[in-house]
């Protein structure tokens, strides 16, 4: 009975996912679930399989075995397009934005509103972009600025504003705080709190336990293609978590 309830609460449920890359057994029957409105920290050493798992969810890889349920329905995700149509939005370090394009062109990339004959409604794009950024607490001078002129934190803000604006149901944050200054990290964590306030589920992948401990409600630790630990925040301290990550990397 309790299990049933938990299933209905899930926005994402991945069951017994397996993935091979040639002879490398990258994922060995991983179960992963994410509740509505929940933020899960996905942890593990390099090569633990967390990127592979997430890339299966976002459509870059297709699993060799296993099922994915989204919003209660069984789904097949074959491309980033499929994932995006479901409402899965990715905020990747390098893969989210086109640096030389303007902020508004980035926010509406692939979903540009048109006035007819394929002509973009630039005014609408500019206004809504600025509004979306403001909702996030980001005040930028102009929607025409190329993204390359923004700071690292502001760039993550643009990608997150885009996810919120298009009402994503699940946001994948892949190392959103890597290579940022302390001030920018705080900015980005604030953006992620906004995602939480909007009630959007998110998966926060990182190496930095301090950043994720502040913000996530549950932690999943992976190692060598397997899920090692799945633990609620109230059940662990930061030190426990750190030990768990190190131990699971050393097991075997």
């Amino acid at each position, binding site marked *: 009975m309790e299990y049933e309830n938990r299933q209905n609460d899930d926005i994402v449920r991945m069951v017994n996912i397996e993935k091979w890359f040639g002879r490398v057994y990258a994922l060995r029957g991983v179960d992963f679930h994410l509740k509505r409105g929940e933020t899960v920290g996905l942890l593990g050493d390099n090569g633990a399989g967390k990127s592979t798992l997430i890339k299966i969810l976002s459509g870059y890889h297709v699993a060799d075995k296993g099922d994915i349920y989204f919003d209660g329905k069984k789904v097949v995700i074959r491309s980033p397009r499929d994932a995006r149509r479901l409402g899965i939005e990715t905020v*990747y370090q390098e893969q989210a934005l086109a640096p030389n394009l303007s902020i508004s062109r980035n926010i509406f990339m692939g*979903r*540009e509103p048109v006035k007819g004959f394929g*002509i973009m409604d630039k005014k609408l794009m500019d206004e809504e972009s600025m509004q979306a950024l403001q909702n996030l607490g980001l005040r930028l001078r102009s929607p025409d600025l190329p993204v390359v*002129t923004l700071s690292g934190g502001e760039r993550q803000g643009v990608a997150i504003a885009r996810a919120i604006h298009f009402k994503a149901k699940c946001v994948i944050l892949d190392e959103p705080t890597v290579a940022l200054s302390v001030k920018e990290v705080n900015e980005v964590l604030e953006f992620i709190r906004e995602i939480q306030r909007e009630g959007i589920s998110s998966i926060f992948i990182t190496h930095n336990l301090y950043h994720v401990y502040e913000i996530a409600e549950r932690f999943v630790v992976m190692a060598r293609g397997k899920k090692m630990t799945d633990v609620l925040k109230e059940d662990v301290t930061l030190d426990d978590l750190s030990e768990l990550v190190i131990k699971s990397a050393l097991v075997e």
Partner: protein
Amino acid sequence: MTNQESIWKRLIVSRSLSIFVVFIVLIVLFTVFSPQGRFLDPENLKVLLAYGSEFSIIALGAGFLMVTGEFDLSVGSILVFCSFAFLKFFGLHLNLFVVLALTIGVGALLGLLNAMITVKGQIPSFVATLGTMMLWRGLTLWFSGGEQQACDVSSSPAFVSFLNGNLGNFFPIQAMWFIVFGIILGVILHLTRLGNWIYSTGDNADAARAMGIRTDIVKMLSFMVVGILCAFVAGIQISRVSCFTARTGEGWELKAVAACVVGGTSLRGGIGNMSGIFLGAFTISMIENGLVVLRIPYFWTYVVFGLVIIFSVLSSMYIERQKWAQK
């Protein structure tokens, strides 16, 4: 900041500024140094606009494609192959507009083939189109025996005036086509959603794919635009000279790259605009014409091309750095 100010500012700091300066300086130089100011003579301008537009139209397509991050080194060979195709269709005694339409179909197919090799084969387009450049040129030489062949289109005055006539008494229609294609491609690139997909594909293909853009299809369309423009120019050329020449378009591939780069287009894609490409294309055509008018031996043309390329790219880099330094 008022809107007008910002438009003005953007114009000043845009990458196409340097090509605009080069363009003006060259006009002044050619005017001052040509004997009896012959450069600005209406007869010469007519020649410049009529002949120069043939290359310039193709350069527009090359620039459009370059924004997606791809090259086409086979433009000259597509041109000559399409000329030959035109000749063969002409031999079937069809209406000349039908002949042109069929030729454009061939051009689009050759563009599509370049795209398939590049996209499906996952080969850099530089290599893929280097291959097709040699392939189509070689096949055309083989089929044609490398000889000129008459293709007299004067039987259809409507066709000749469509591709090789004048607007009013002066303005060569080729230049009108150059402007028309420039505007069409400019509108697509800057105002439509397809344009945003093209920029996104060139700037960060991973991001574009993650946002659901079909980058393969965007690239295919862009390669086909180049093929179509080459075929159209094949029609223009034949209507001008009334014959097929196996050597047409030789060396145009690198001149086209030069025109785009001079016009502020990034070789890596994602950066560039149509007005810059347009001016770049026109400048390259103008240099060839201007040096002839100045009676400077032809081999100097390449010296000037080289200097113009290096100067304009250096200055646009400089402007770029200034621009970011201000922010």
